[in-house]
């Protein structure tokens, strides 16, 4: 620590409180905007059945006798899961027979596996029940839309982002007081670039007439903490981290834009699966072992972890539209794909990531599975868990043996965790200030033990806010999934946040000895380029599920659909 005078001590002490207050203000604003504000669902059409008029609030609507059907018809002729009524991106509708006994008809035409086109005013015969379909005209849609609460109406995103900017400036001030003179330039440059990047993103959103920026703000908040970790522990890597951050945000934007068009996104699942498998294969063949796990690939001076990118692919492949969710073939493919991923990770010895994949697999299967598949899934799950157990390598077994006993071997097996726990505790609620801790000198402090490092330097409150930011994103994903246009988006958002939460708990609780120490990263915050890329890309899934009015760049507004005047191609969504 540099010797500092009385004035800088005062500034340091003040800045600690300012950082905490700004963090609290920021998270509270995001929670208010994302979780407590009421947002009305979109309405895409109506199904009239006798005196009932069912609004269609999704692009994919389940018709059936089941309690949780979107259009529930209590009649013995209607199967529990009978039909799916589906809207294409360009506004044309089709109805699919799922597992019905009674069949689905429009006039004399019976719906086959490819579905049947439905036009405004058509009567759909569902197991003898007659449902009249009424589409929402663009004019009507606009009228309905204007009544919906738009994102950022009560909680201005600009103010939240401004709070983040002030937070960043005070954090930079702390680094300016602790960093070595020769590192300061790079740190300042990275900070200014980060601030510029987030405001650029914000203005791009405004340009696209979008007003939801909470997800990005939280992601930038966490990324800022990650930058702080790099500035404290390896200031020499500051510019590399900046480049990676810019790349991560770019990938986030690209994936978000790609996901705008459902048919395109769904059709690419096969390609994504193949690319993911290739990446895993590459990993098995050409990886370097780092501390037992061979999960690193070195390429042109950059080392990266393919498994981090496969995480994104895993979510992408795991998501599915509602009509496909009920088809077994789609599920089998996913089980096979998952098994391959988990087994590959177990083979290369990356036990932590394998576990993350496995738990995410369970979540996705649960989200998708109907009653038929449950048994099969359990079997597949058990087989994979068994393989995991068998493949546990000696060094992993050692970590399990250490679990809960780290203080008994402070200079051996418990070396890292005891130091993480001690340094964190020394930080108290307010922390020691950026760059003023000692944990940063311990191996893997800026990755596997990053929560303790943040706690030591920024205090427990900011540590908790860091976790709360991720929880807020998860709660939001669940909330917004309920109004999702397509099951594809809803499943992807929920699965992505499950994966990040599992990863977070293994990182935080592993380093603090509540769980075995598996050495995985904290999303956004841990140093490590590929992890940062994948964390940001995960946010694209949430953005694509966020269909609050004018909220997300990754969601197309109704009027944008009409621009090209083309019809939906039924082949798009086979």
């Amino acid at each position, binding site marked *: *620590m540099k010797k500092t005078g009385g004035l800088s001590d005062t500034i340091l002490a003040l800045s600690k409180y300012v950082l905490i207050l700004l963090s609290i203000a920021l998270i509270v604003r995001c929670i208010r905007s994302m979780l407590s504000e009421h947002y009305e669902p979109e309405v895409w059409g109506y199904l009239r059945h006798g005196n009932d008029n069912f609004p269609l609030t999704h692009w*994919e*609507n*389940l018709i059936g006798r*089941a309690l*949780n*059907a*979107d259009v529930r018809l209590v009649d013995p002729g209607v199967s529990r*899961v009978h039909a799916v009524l589906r809207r294409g991106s360009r506004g044309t509708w089709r109805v699919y027979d799922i597992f019905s006994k009674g069949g689905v008809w429009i006039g004399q035409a019976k719906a086959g596996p490819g579905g049947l086109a439905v036009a405004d005013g058509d009567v759909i015969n569902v197991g003898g029940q007659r449902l009249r379909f009424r589409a929402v005209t663009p004019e009507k849609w606009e009228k309905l839309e204007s009544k919906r609460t738009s994102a950022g109406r009560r909680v201005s995103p600009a103010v939240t982002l401004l709070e983040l900017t002030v937070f960043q400036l005070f954090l930079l001030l702390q680094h300016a007081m602790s960093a070595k003179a020769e590192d300061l330039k790079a740190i300042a440059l990275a900070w200014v670039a980060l601030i510029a990047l987030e405001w650029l993103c914000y203005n791009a959103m405004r340009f696209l007439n979008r007003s939801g920026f909470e997800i990005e703000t939280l992601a930038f908040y966490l990324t800022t903490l990650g930058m702080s970790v790099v500035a404290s522990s390896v200031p020499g890597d500051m510019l590399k981290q900046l480049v990676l951050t810019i790349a991560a945000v770019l990938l986030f934007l690209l994936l978000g834009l790609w996901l705008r068009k459902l048919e395109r996104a769904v059709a690419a699942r096969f390609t994504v699966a193949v690319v993911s498998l290739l990446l895993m294969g590459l990993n098995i063949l050409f990886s370097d072992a780092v501390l037992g796990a061979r999960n690193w690939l070195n390429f042109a001076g950059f080392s990266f972890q393919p498994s981090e990118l496969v995480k994104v692919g895993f979510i992408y492949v795991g998501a599915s539209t*509602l009509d496909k*969710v009920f088809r077994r073939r789609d599920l089998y493919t996913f089980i096979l794909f998952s098994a391959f991923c988990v087994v590959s990770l177990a083979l290369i010895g990356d036990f932590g990531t394998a576990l993350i994949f496995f*738990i995410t697999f369970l*979540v996705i299967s*649960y*989200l*998708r599975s109907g009653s038929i598949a449950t048994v099969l899934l359990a079997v597949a799950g058990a087989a994979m868990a068994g393989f995991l157990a068998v493949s546990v390598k000696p060094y992993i077994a050692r970590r399990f043996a250490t679990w809960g006993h780290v203080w008994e071997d*402070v*200079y051996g097996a418990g070396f890292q965790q*005891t130091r993480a*726990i*001690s*340094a*964190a*505790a*020394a*930080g*108290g*609620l*307010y*922390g*020691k200030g950026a760059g003023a801790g*000692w944990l940063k000198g311990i191996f893997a402090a800026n990755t596997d033990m990053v929560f303790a490092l943040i706690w*030591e330097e920024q*205090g*427990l409150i900011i540590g*908790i806010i860091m*976790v709360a930011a*991720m*929880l807020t994103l*998860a*709660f939001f*994903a*669940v909330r917004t*999934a*309920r109004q*999702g246009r397509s*099951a594809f988006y*809803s*499943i992807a958002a*929920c699965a992505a*946040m*499950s994966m990040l*939460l*599992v990863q977070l*708990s293994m990182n*935080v*609780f592993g380093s*603090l000895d*509540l*769980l075995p120490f598996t050495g995985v990263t904290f999303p956004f915050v841990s140093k490590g380029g590929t992890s940062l890329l994948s964390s940001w890309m995960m946010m694209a899934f949430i953005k694509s599920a966020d269909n609050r009015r004018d909220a997300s760049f990754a969601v197309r507004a109704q009027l944008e659909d009409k621009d090209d005047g083309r019809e939906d191609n039924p082949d798009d969504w086979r």
Partner: protein
Amino acid sequence: MRKITNRAFSVLLIAALVIAGMAVYVLRYIDHGQEWALYFSRANTGSTGHMVDRNGITLAYFSGANNLFSPDRETRIANYHVTGDYWGRTGTGLLSRFWKDTNDFSLLTGTTHSSDKLLQLTIDARLNNKIYEALGEDCDGCMLVCNYRTGELLGMVSVPSTDPIDGNAELREGTFINRCISASFTPGSIFKLITASAAIENLKNLDKRTWYCEDGVKIAGVEITCIADHYTQTFEQALANSCNVAFAQIAVELGQERMIRYVRDYGFLDGHSLDGIPTAAGSYPLEFVGDPETGWSGIGQSTDMVVPYSMLRFLCAVANGGTLIEPHLLLGETPEASVLVKPATADKLGQMMNYNAVSHYNAEEMFPGMTVCAKTGTAELGDGDSHSWFVGYLADEETPYAFVTLVERGGFGITRAGAVASEVMQWAVENLEP
């Protein structure tokens, strides 16, 4: 869609587990935060402080950014096990204790530094240097010197040692262990002091009895050997001869249970606290072993293990008329006092130890001008080697020093450990302030 979105609560389940985990950890933090935060001395927040020996010689200096030590390499090495090091490699060094004393902790602010602190030790750094020199850097061994009237620990050295500022030095096995307090060893004949104490208190007409030693002795068919034939000897002579035949028979006569009681009461089976630094515990056969093994255990063989520090406490009590002034390291402390040995027993044992020294150990030459009471030990390890022990005290009011000397695999007690004790005690009498 609802069918699927209803299942999204599985995500909330994971979120709930995260929240529960955080809550559990925060509670643990409230409970243990202080203990955790102050565990590693390198986590110093900027406290400055000074650790000096009894004469004001610097042993360690906290400057906030790092720990400095004595500028003299020899002093650093000889006092290594007292101070510990910056990395906390030896768990029993005082630096970690010092760090806890100079830093405050609260759950709100974490660790904060308090004002400068001077920690003065009872240790005499020069004495430690002398001990280190006398033991020699190549041996495995240790020595303790304590003022039995005040409980002040004057010397504590364990070899092998290392330089606390040199993190790259080649290290011999066991360098980080302070043999004085953290290890136990086969005691051999020094254990006869305990057997003798028990005999003094329990055997009638002790002074009129004699023991005959020729070609060892058979106890329940098992032969116990002796180093020489001592023929007929009194109790006092038996101790001076360190006669295995006599003491094995005495132990058998006392019985295993009674022996265990004495070993336990004298504190040999427990760990103790040296100013908060925990010391190791020794051992003695506690399960029923039968007469031959009881005989062996009475002469410090069998499974007997003694921690040098425990032996020092016993000697301090004997030297101080039975009352133990608890040994300590921080100068100015008021130590606890307790009766460890019955005064009459202590006196009797003291006389016998003095007789040992005068009649058998060439005391006049080895400890000129001193009233030395001592016992040697040559603890057979069963592989041909023996630990060399020499323990005792000076029964002089000006120089009330008790000492324990051990050289692992050093051969005969008198020749190796005895020589070290002789060299150190001569130096101590001449150079230590009364």
